Structures are given as structure tokens and as C-alpha cells.
């Protein structure tokens, strides 16, 4: 059981800086998710931690002791790869036993442990199959069992669910969460799926171009994004460029033409600042209030049946489009009055460049 894994890493490939002084401290038994778009350096970060590639600069400390000089096999980590990376020439049982054999464990102990691991990932009876004879989800679970079998000091997971279909992904998500808790693991999980990050993590680290943009608990990241980039990642579909008109405490009023929105700020803003208001489709509601701040009118342009609710695209008076979720169906072309609750609107500093 470890108490902390702390690292600060820079990685360059030629002139390209893939990780720019990425620093993080993970506590024992913590589940940390590194969330970011494709190519932001997530896999590179895990590979550096595992010792599979060497950092350009930086250090890794496990319980205060530097381990960045150790080869991968002496770090005592477990890793689940995006493409599973199961050994095709070995049976499921031998795959799971791989690390134990190399650690020189006794035959009986290995057999018992493999049995327990397969039971844990619900693959009892599959020990003699070959990976090629398993479904994607089963292979995934073998990969997890192989990583867990060595009782890893830190478990690294690189987008382990990205190759699975939606249903299986949900199932495996629960499975991973259960295993993490039951076995008291310390896990670093890499993904570009916000739902996965929110449901699994104690802490989320948002990475962009090799740099940490924001870190915090799922609730913090979800409710208080500090940048348009993070808000976009967290499901705020609607963004309106505005100018801050007035501020009082952590709420501000911002406007652009006829549109006036009151909302929360996470990062302090002053009157005159360029800002972006962000709101989630599901936070917008229909209203009978008269027009004013946070109440807008528009025409339904597109509707989409989503099962429990209806996705509706509304063209607002004055140009911008608002995407909302409504409980009741509406017809294309009809007029709608909508309210954007101030406590649900986040006003963020405008970024140079697009979101």
C-alpha cells in the first residue's frame, strides 16, 4: 500500500513538447483520472510513469523515493493498455499468471491467485482459452486481471474502455470502480470520455496540449469549470460571447446586443471584460416570464427525439442558436420562451482563439 505518487514530467519528441511540466501528486487509494482530447499527451504520461519511455526532464517519487531511474519491471506497477496487449500465444490463465511467474512465485500459489483473479473479473472457467477466442469485453477483463494479479503499487489504465460498445462500457465502468474500492488500489486512469471521468474519479485532471488546465473533484470540474475548454469538455453545449456589464460578488451580468445573461463566475471578472456564458442543454427551461435578463425567445429549428426527452435547437432573436433538452415535444417553427437559470449559467473569461 503506497501513501503517495508524486511526479513532475516534461517530455519532448524532437522539437514538439508533448508534456510541459506535468505535475501531480496522487495519494494512496485515490482514483485520479487524466482527461483530455486525443493527442494531448495522456498515453505519453502513463508510459513515462510506467518507465516505458524516458522523460526529457523531471522526476517520479513513490512514497518520497525516486523511481524514475528504475526499469519498468522494477516499479511494481500494473497497466491496462488501450488495445489490451494480451499475449496471443498464451492462454488466459498464462496471461494472468505472467507477472507472477516472473516474480518466481510457487506453482500452487500462482494457480490459486489466477483462479481468484479470474473470479474477480468474472471469467471463471476461461483459463484455458486463448485471447483470440474471447470477446472484446472479456479480453478487457483479462487485461485487468493480469494487471491486478501482480498486486500493483499503482494501477495505470490507458483508455481501457474505448474499444467497447456503449452497454459493455457502462458495465465495465462499474466493474473497475468496484475493483478499485474492494482491493484498495491506487489508480491513474486516462480517458477522453467525461462521463467515465465523472463517475469513476476521486479527482479529475484536465490536460490540454500537455498542460494541466484544471484539476479537482468531479463536482468541482462539472459545476465550476474555469475555462471554456473545460466547460466544453463537461457538456456545456451553449456558448455566448458577451461583455461583462456589472459584477456583484461571484455573479455577474453580461450582455451582447439584446442578450443579457446573469451567471456565476469561477474566475473573477470585471466590467468591460470579454466573457463567454456557458450553459448546458438540460439546464434550460421553458418559461412564461416576461422578457428580461436570462429569458430569451426564439423559434424551434430542429427537434430530435432522445427517448426520455427531446433535443431542441432554438434560433434566438438576434442570431445565436441555443440547444436545449425539453420534457415535452415541440413542433419545428413554433415560438418558445426559455429561461436560463442564473445559478446554472457560468460566465467564463473569453479565451484568445476559439474554445
Amino acid at each position, binding site marked *: 500500500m503506497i501513501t503517495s505518487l508524486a511526479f513532475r514530467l516534461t517530455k519532448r519528441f524532437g522539437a514538439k513538447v508533448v508534456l510541459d511540466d506535468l505535475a501531480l501528486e496522487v495519494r494512496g487509494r485515490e482514483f485520479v483520472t487524466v482527461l483530455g482530447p486525443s493527442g494531448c499527451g495522456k498515453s505519453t504520461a502513463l*508510459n513515462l510513469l510506467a518507465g516505458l519511455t524516458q522523460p526529457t526532464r523531471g522526476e517520479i517519487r513513490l512514497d518520497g523515493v525516486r523511481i524514475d531511474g528504475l526499469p519498468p519491471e522494477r516499479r511494481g506497477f500494473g497497466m491496462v493498455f488501450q488495445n489490451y496487449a494480451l*499475449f496471443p500465444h498464451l492462454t488466459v490463465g498464462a496471461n494472468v499468471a*505472467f*507477472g507472477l511467474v516472473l516474480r518466481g512465485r510457487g506453482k500452487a500459489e500462482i494457480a490459486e491467485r489466477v483462479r481468484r483473479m479470474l473470479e474477480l473479473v468474472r471469467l471463471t472457467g476461461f483459463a484455458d482459452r486463448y485471447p483470440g477466442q474471447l470477446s472484446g469485453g472479456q479480453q478487457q477483463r483479462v487485461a485487468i486481471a493480469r494487471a491486478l494479479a501482480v498486486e500493483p503499487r499503482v494501477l495505470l489504465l490507458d483508455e481501457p474502455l474505448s474499444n467497447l460498445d456503449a452497454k459493455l462500457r457502462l458495465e465495465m465502468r462499474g466493474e473497475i470502480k468496484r475493483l478499485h474500492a474492494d482491493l484498495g488500489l491506487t489508480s491513474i486512469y486516462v480517458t477522453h470520455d467525461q462521463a467515465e471521468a465523472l463517475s469513476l474519479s476521486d479527482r479529475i485532471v484536465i490536460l490540454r496540449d500537455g498542460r494541466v488546465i484544471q484539476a479537482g473533484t468531479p463536482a468541482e470540474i462539472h459545476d465550476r469549470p474555469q475555462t471554456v475548454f473545460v466547460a466544453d469538455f463537461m457538456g456545456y453545449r451553449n456558448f455566448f460571447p458577451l461583455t461583462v456589464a456589472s459584477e456583484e460578488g461571484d455573479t455577474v451580468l453580461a450582455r451582447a446586443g439584446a442578450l443579457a445573461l446573469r451567471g456565476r463566475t469561477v474566475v473573477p471578472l470585471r466590467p468591460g471584460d470579454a466573457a463567454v456564458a456557458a450553459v448546458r442543454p438540460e439546464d434550460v427551461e421553458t418559461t412564461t416570464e416576461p422578457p428580461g435578463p436570462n429569458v430569451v425567445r426564439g423559434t424551434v429549428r430542429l427537434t430530435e427525439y432522445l427517448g426520455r426527452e427531446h433535443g431542441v435547437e432554438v434560433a434566438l432573436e438576434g442570431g445565436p442558436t441555443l440547444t436545449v433538452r425539453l420534457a415535452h415535444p415541440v413542433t419545428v417553427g413554433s415560438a418558445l420562451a426559455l429561461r436560463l437559470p442564473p445559478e446554472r449559467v457560468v460566465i467564463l473569461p473569453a479565451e484568445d482563439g476559439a474554445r
Partner: protein
Amino acid sequence: MRGRLWRLAVFLFVVGFVLNLAGVVGHVLVSSLARRWFATPLPGALTTEWYAYAWREFQLDQVLGVTLTVAGTVTAAALVLGFPAAYLLARHDFRGKGPLLLLFFLPLLVPQMTYGIPLATTLYRYRIGGTVAGVIAANLVPMLPLAIFVLLPFVEQISVSLEWAARVHGATRLGVVRRVIVPLALPGLLTAGLLVLVNTVANFELTFLLSGAGSQTLVVALYYAVFAAGMRPIYSVDAMAVIYMAVVLAVLVLALRLVRPTQMVFRLDRRD
């Protein structure tokens, strides 16, 4: 219409080829068993004594021993040296890799005589020429590139993430080679070994240039039997040719028992 003509042409070609081969091989086989064979469609009487004669006269026990020693050593050396080379070439990209590979594979492309003669001259200068070691060294010149050439794609298709998974879960560099790379490249090793083996047994030019008395392989001995001074009965030479063909066939059959290229590809899926 076009298709049928085409198929007919292929059919005739195959029939012609098989008939031709059967004719040549059949003639040699019959001749090797003939007491004498002049101006008649078939020999009057058959005998196996030419085999005994050839065995004695051409010292075939010794020649056979050299042939198998050379073939075995060349195969083993080509694999032992070629595998690490193929691995490094497959895993590392560097500038000038393409031209280097081309240069490297040159011995496979150019006629062996062109470099065989200077090679022989050099080896004789170092007193390796004329010995079994010389024959082995010369044969390795084209066979090592061949082994690498065959192994390269087999190694390339082993995903690096498999190596990484092995490392993370406790394998040293050597452990990765032993437990992951070699087992997964086994079909390639067997295929490369087979090709090198058959090619070495059949190699004439280089072996001819490098071998002295006591270091001749079967093909070269056969050549000398035909053209060397002192008339030998043609039946005994034919007997020797049959022995040579039988050896090649035996090597091939034996090797194919171990390697069935098509089976190797699906090897992993087949087991259930």
C-alpha cells in the same frame, strides 16, 4: 471466352511442366537402376549396384556428412545472427535505413558468381578457402540477408505494446525476448530456417568456389562426378543424382513437417 482460353493456357503450361519434370526425373531414376541402357525404350535388366558403386566411389558418406554439417550450421548461424538483426531493423527507424537495407540485400539480388570469385580469393588468402568453414562462411553471405529478409515482417507485426505489457508486469529485456518475441516470431524463424536450409543444400556456385577435397557438398560432388577426369559409368552418376534429389526431398519434407506456412498464420486461432 477470354477466361477459358486463359485457363486452357495455364492448364497446358502446368501439364507441360509436369511432363517435362517427370520425364527428366524418370529418365535419371530409370538410368540409375539400369544394368545397361542403349537404343531401347527401357533397359533390359535392372540393378541397384550403381548405388553401392556411387556410394563407394564418390565417398558419399563423407559428402553427405559435409552437406548436412554445412546446411545445419549455416541455418543455425543465419537464424542466431539474423534474428537480433531483424529485430533491431524492425524496431528502429533511422535515416538511411532504406538504402542500407537495399545494400544489405544486394547479395540476394545479384548473381552469386559476381561476388563469389572475389569472396573466394579473399577467403583463400586467409586460408579458410577449401575448408568446411570456408564453405559455411561463403554460404552465409547470401543466407544471412535472406533470413533477415524473411524475419523482418514477422517481427514487425509483433506489437510493441506486447513488449511493454511484458516489461510493466515484470519481464526484463531478456525476458521479453524469451517469453514474448521468440514465441511470437516462431513461424518466421521456422520459415526462414526452412528457406535457408533448402537454399544451402542446393547452393552450387559459392560452395563450388570455396570447397576443396573433403569439403564438397552433394551438388558439387555431383558436378565433379560428371566432369572430372576419368570416365565413370553414367549409371553411377545418375544414381548419385537420385541420392541428391532424395536428400533434398527428405530435407524439404522433414522441414515442412515442422513448418507449414499457411498453418502458421492461423496457428493461434486453430487451437480450441
